[in-house]
């Protein structure tokens, strides 16, 4: 069976302006709206399109985290994933451990393609995809903006600093999604009802028996330094005068 694994991370909603706890112990998350990491929605959409073109048989959404993550996996099922797996852990999971856990699932499920977001918008680490590809000893195509799948290879266009790069990968492989790969679909009400009946398996992180160690210890969390508001000029001439005064324009 040709399976696609999609990584799903529960993160603070894109539109929420987060606050740092006054005691420096972290970011205040109580009562904050949560959702699927936007890049992971793009990953899921791409997997669904591949399956709809007849190039995959099953789309498997996998997440790692506490029980509440089941909400996001149900959303993924409503979008169209066939099955979901929650690797349950109440502890904070570093990208390296996430890659280890995803690899354990990949080995169990015989996955042909893994699609992850290029970064999660909470920790902005941008690590899990390449780490997974490295541990799996398989190709990676990060920042994908176009994916063409054939029987044994994928041709992927990547958004790189120079422009657009195209590479060819033997499958299985790991892709990470950039913003312009696709526009994720909206979920319709009947799909939410259907998703309730789809299989969502919960596996305890510990049962994967991974050699996990904490690499990064967070000592404190602080708000960033703020820029102060400057002057408002009244017209173009004043703007130019202000720029010249600062020596920024001749």
């Amino acid at each position, binding site marked *: 069976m040709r399976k696609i694994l999609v990584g799903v991370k529960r993160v603070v909603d894109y539109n929420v*302006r*987060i606050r*740092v706890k006054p005691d420096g112990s972290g*970011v205040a998350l109580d009562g904050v709206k949560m959702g699927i990491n936007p890049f992971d929605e793009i990953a899921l959409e791409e997997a669904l399109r591949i399956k709809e073109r007849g190039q995959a048989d099953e789309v498997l959404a996998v997440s790692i985290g506490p029980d509440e993550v089941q909400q996001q996996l149900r959303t993924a099922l409503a979008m169209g994933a066939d099955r979901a797996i929650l690797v349950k852990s109440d502890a904070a999971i570093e*990208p*390296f451990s996430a890659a280890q856990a995803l690899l354990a699932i990949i080995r169990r499920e015989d996955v042909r393609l893994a699609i992850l977001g*290029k*970064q999660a*918008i*909470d920790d*902005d680490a*941008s*690590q*899990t*995809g*390449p*780490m*997974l590809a490295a541990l799996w000893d398989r*190709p*990676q*195509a*990060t*920042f994908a*903006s176009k994916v063409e799948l054939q029987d044994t290879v994928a*041709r992927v266009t990547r*958004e*790189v*600093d*120079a*422009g*657009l790069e*195209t*590479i*060819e990968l*033997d499958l299985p492989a790991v892709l990470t999604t*950039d*913003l*312009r790969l696709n526009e994720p679909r909206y979920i319709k009400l009947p799909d939410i009802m259907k998703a309730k009946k789809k299989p969502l398996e919960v596996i305890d992180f510990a049962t994967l028996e991974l050699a996990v*160690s904490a690499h*990064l*210890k*967070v*000592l404190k*969390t*602080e708000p*960033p330094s703020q*820029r102060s*508001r*400057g*002057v*408002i*000029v009244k017209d*173009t*001439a*004043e*703007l*130019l005068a202000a720029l010249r005064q*600062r020596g*920024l*324009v001749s």
Partner: protein
Amino acid sequence: MTQVLVIADHDGSRLNAGTARCVTAALQIPDAKVHVAIFARDGAAVAAAASALRGVQKVICINRAENEHALAVQLAPQVVALMPSYSHLLGPSNSFGKDLLPRVAALLGVGQVSDLMASESAHRFRRPIYAGNAIVTLETDPAAKVVATVRIASFEAAGSGGSAAVETVNLNVPLPTHTRFISVSAAKSDRPDLQSAAKVVSGGRAVGSQENFQLIYKLADRLGAAVGASRAAVDAGYAPNELQVGQTGKIIAPDLYVAVGISGAIQHLTGIKDAKTIVAINKDAEAPIFEVADIGLVADLFKVLPELQALLGGA
């Protein structure tokens, strides 16, 4: 002993400006001895540029045909082969470093510090999370190697005038063939590079179309500036993806940033907060961009840009 290896980003002939900033980041680590590694088909020209960076003790050049297109899967095992001599590995947090360094970290069996913005000790670092809305201080295992991508906007470029020795190294490492370079379409431009430019003019959604974006290019050319764009402008097709500035695009720190028709979503502001002077031109007085702008002008960009062009004179 703190031995830092900086992986150079380059296009085969020129050293990317981010590398000089990574060298500064490396020199901030206490007692660091800094080497720069260049992976190329023929890295001689790039090595010469790297050896002139002040503070670099040695440049290591690994010439190999497979290194021409800098594929992460092929560079990673070579970097790993160099690492027994080093305690720290740094690279730029751009599309090159973000692709390569996590792969190296995983092969080394360590976590990665992403977007390093300051080093407090050899194992204690500061980095932004949540699009820069929080800064964490974290500590890595003192017994493990440190792999970090550098938030290059946080560091000035290392000066020139150095003359580090260049050593050509032959690494006998088998490389995978499962990944093949096909092509790259780079928009050829005579304009300054967005990531390293001293001046940047950026357009947002309010610019309205790809044709109107010519107004942005025109002003940029008159100022000798690079061109940037907000995510909204790129998503709408007004500007190509490599011009995107912000959390999911490029993080920049020019002397002058001119935001034209950009409202200033937090995801955009995180990409420009280290700019020395921010100018905002927007007809919406309530736009969040004015909260961070040093000079603001509440006006219609279609009126201001031609006026500015006329006042500046020239084409």
